[in-house]
């Protein structure tokens, strides 16, 4: 139950005494000399810019809206003032912040906007004083309270406990400046796009592949829903471009006139996301210099409108104007409605080549297919069985194992691959040689001991992809992961394989992969009974081991594979020694692990 628009957070705190202004604010002059940029201070800073009119003198004024209607000031946050500790949210505040619009330079200038310097009065001051910061969301009441707080908590880098959420502006209080700052950072970061989309849909002409966003701010649909689309703000523009990218990426014509655009940084995404754009209308905006066009010069524009931007006045003649524009858009045929003489181009532009089609398993040769598939099925049935000790048979004495995962900025304890995180050996991020060494498990005992500690899993071998690769689909109720595993193996008697190197890369599965997982039923694992050796067999075994130099396990395997024919086994062994070892990568996109 909410309308579209952006969540804007205003924060105000209450100052302990009369001089409640804590420093000037570097704001952009109304005539526009550059975008507003203000640094963040934890406990001090300028007050929010007042909407529209300026108020003289002190005294409380209505709380300023955070956004600015005429687009001059591109604030993206508001800095808190320090609450008087005596006036906390559980009582009436004794003073409101002054909403005076300060144009002076920070910390000085006339007009009484003197910086108060470090207003850390209450912060860490004596005796249990607390600073309260009041956050409010314009029109916050229209949002469902739980949705609102949850949305903020999801995006805010710090956890917070809002106190006393109420009112038309969904006001709530935060008792810590660091948290308050973290919240400020998310101002304007949450956008509900449905309202945007509907409005844009009305302004889209499918037959022309044209979207008209001229003066979008006053669009009656948006206004009636209190949706604020201010295209000269990054988040608005980004939201709009995202909607275009997701719904009408083939767009050919775009009209952005009358949107008070003063820079084109936020349009640069158009180059990659709307590559077919040929006509662009930027007229009646606030672009000051033709250098803004550099941000979008990747577009292959054929028609451009730029008139009624300040930049147009800075050219000494039409010819230089055209020339500068054409430098960015060599294919341009029409500028401000005037035809231009067609340019002479160089035919270097080639349609980019297509990629070769992606194919499934490449097994190299048919004869490898069965043993590899068999080996992998056997490997994973043990791996999933709950007891991974039998894997000792699959590994060479000197085997190594390591695992890696995609690098994530997320807190590891909150990451769903958390079980794997501490052992992830990503050399791009891990630089200490000792740690790098420690994370490489060496010798089969260590490898299998480590594997035994990894979460229980269930793999389901359905189809194999071999590059030599194998593709398995797993069936489980738990979280789905995807992985890529590389085995380097050597022959181990007959058609068995023995792993010498094992590297596992694990990541989260995509929703598409999860959806496609477990389509085919799992094969029933076959159990191979462990044979007991007769006395003559045991004798043959020791002799064979001595002669070949292999350990007992392998000797036994070799003999078994050759039906305990000593000479035959010996011959096979000799032959195997000269065979090349087998290398293949296992690209298994899905398995489930219980964690």
């Amino acid at each position, binding site marked *: 139950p909410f309308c579209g628009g952006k969540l804007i957070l205003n924060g105000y705190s209450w100052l302990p005494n009369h001089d409640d202004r804590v420093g000037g604010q570097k704001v952009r002059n109304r005539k526009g000399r550059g975008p507003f940029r203000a640094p963040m201070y934890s406990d001090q800073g300028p007050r929010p810019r007042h909407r529209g009119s300026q108020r003289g003198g002190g005294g409380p004024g209505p709380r300023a809206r955070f956004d600015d209607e005429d687009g001059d000031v591109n604030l993206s946050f508001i800095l808190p003032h320090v609450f008087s500790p005596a006036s906390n949210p559980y009582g009436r505040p004794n003073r409101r912040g002054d909403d005076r619009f300060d144009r002076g330079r920070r910390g000085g200038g006339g007009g009484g906007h003197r910086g108060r310097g470090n207003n850390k009065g209450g912060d860490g001051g004596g005796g249990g004083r607390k600073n309260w910061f009041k956050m409010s969301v314009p029109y916050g009441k229209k949002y469902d309270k739980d949705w609102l707080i949850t949305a903020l908590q999801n995006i805010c880098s710090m956890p917070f406990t809002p106190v006393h959420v109420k009112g038309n502006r969904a006001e709530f209080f935060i008792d810590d400046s660091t948290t308050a700052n973290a919240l400020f950072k998310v101002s304007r970061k949450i956008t509900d796009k449905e309202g945007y989309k509907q409005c844009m849909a009305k302004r889209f002409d499918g037959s022309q592949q044209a979207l008209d966003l001229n003066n979008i701010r006053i669009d009656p649909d948006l206004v009636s829903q209190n949706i604020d689309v201010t295209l000269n703000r990054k988040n608005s523009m980004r939201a709009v471009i995202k909607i275009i990218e997701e719904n009408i990426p083939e767009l050919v014509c775009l009209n952005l006139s009358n949107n008070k655009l003063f820079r084109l940084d936020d349009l640069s995404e158009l180059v990659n996301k709307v590559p077919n754009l040929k006509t662009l209308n930027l007229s009646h905006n606030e672009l000051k210099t033709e250098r803004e066009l550099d941000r979008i010069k990747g577009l292959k524009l054929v028609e451009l409108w730029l008139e009624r931007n300040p930049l147009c006045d800075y050219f000494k003649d039409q010819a230089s104007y055209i020339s500068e524009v054409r430098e960015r858009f060599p294919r341009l045929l029409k500028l401000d409605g005037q035809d231009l003489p067609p340019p002479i181009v160089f035919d270097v532009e080639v349609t980019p080549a297509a990629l070769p089609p992606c194919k499934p398993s*490449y097994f190299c040769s048919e004869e490898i297919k069965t043993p590899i598939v068999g080996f992998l099925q056997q490997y994973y049935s043990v791996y999933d069985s709950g007891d991974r000790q039998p894997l000792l048979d699959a590994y060479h004495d*000197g085997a190594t194992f390591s695992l890696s995962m995609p690098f994530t900025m997320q807190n590891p304890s909150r990451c769903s691959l958390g079980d794997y995180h501490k052992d992830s050996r990503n050399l791009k991020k891990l630089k200490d040689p000792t740690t790098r060494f420690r994370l490489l498990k060496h010798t089969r005992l260590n490898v299998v001991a480590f594997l035994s500690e990894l979460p229980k899993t269930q793999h389901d071998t359905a189809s194999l992809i071999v590059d030599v690769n194998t593709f398995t689909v797993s069936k489980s109720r738990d979280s789905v992961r995807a992985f890529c595993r590389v085995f380097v193996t050597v022959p181990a008697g007959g058609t068995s394989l023995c792993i010498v190197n094992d590297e596992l890369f694990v990541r989260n599965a995509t929703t598409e992969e999860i959806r496609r997982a477990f389509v085919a039923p799992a094969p029933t694992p076959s159990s191979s009974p462990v044979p007991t050796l007769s006395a003559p067999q045991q004798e043959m075994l020791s002799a064979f081991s001595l002669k070949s130099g292999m350990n007992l396990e392998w000797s036994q395997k070799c003999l078994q594979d050759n039906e305990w024919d000593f000479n035959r086994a010996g011959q096979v062994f000799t032959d195997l020694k000269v065979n090349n070892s087998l290398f293949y*990568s296992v690209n298994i996109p899905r398995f489930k692990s219980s964690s």
Partner: protein
Amino acid sequence: MGSLAEFCPFCNTADFRTHVDASCRYSEEFTNIYYDCMDKKRRNLMRLYLDKATLVWNGNAVSGQAALGDFFESLPSSEFSIQTLDCQPVHEQATQGQTTLLVVTAGQVKFDGQKQRYFNQNFLLTAQASPTSDQPVWKIASDCFRFQDWSS
């Protein structure tokens, strides 16, 4: 399959450690060179491969330097971003004594005309004597590349 434990760096701990450290450094250097070449000097890329090297690229097999050269030329220009790297020295038993490195990478790539995609890749690098220098050079013996969403 006899054991040469006393000479095998995989069994001798001090040598093994050195081996692992060196492998890490080589793999970092290799990935820098390889992806830089892939993005900026595509024509030179095939020189990093052994002549009998095999590439399996999303299930397409290519082998031999000439075919590799043609193949890389046929791909659109690329912008790779490597986010994960791991490597292991390959056990000599698999390589008949030739020093070999397993390098595993993952990240994102944008080919011209395509959307950005995640990929996994792994290489076997092998040290070869060089005709032009005293020092051995690393060459790619095998290369396996796949988009994570190859089937879409």
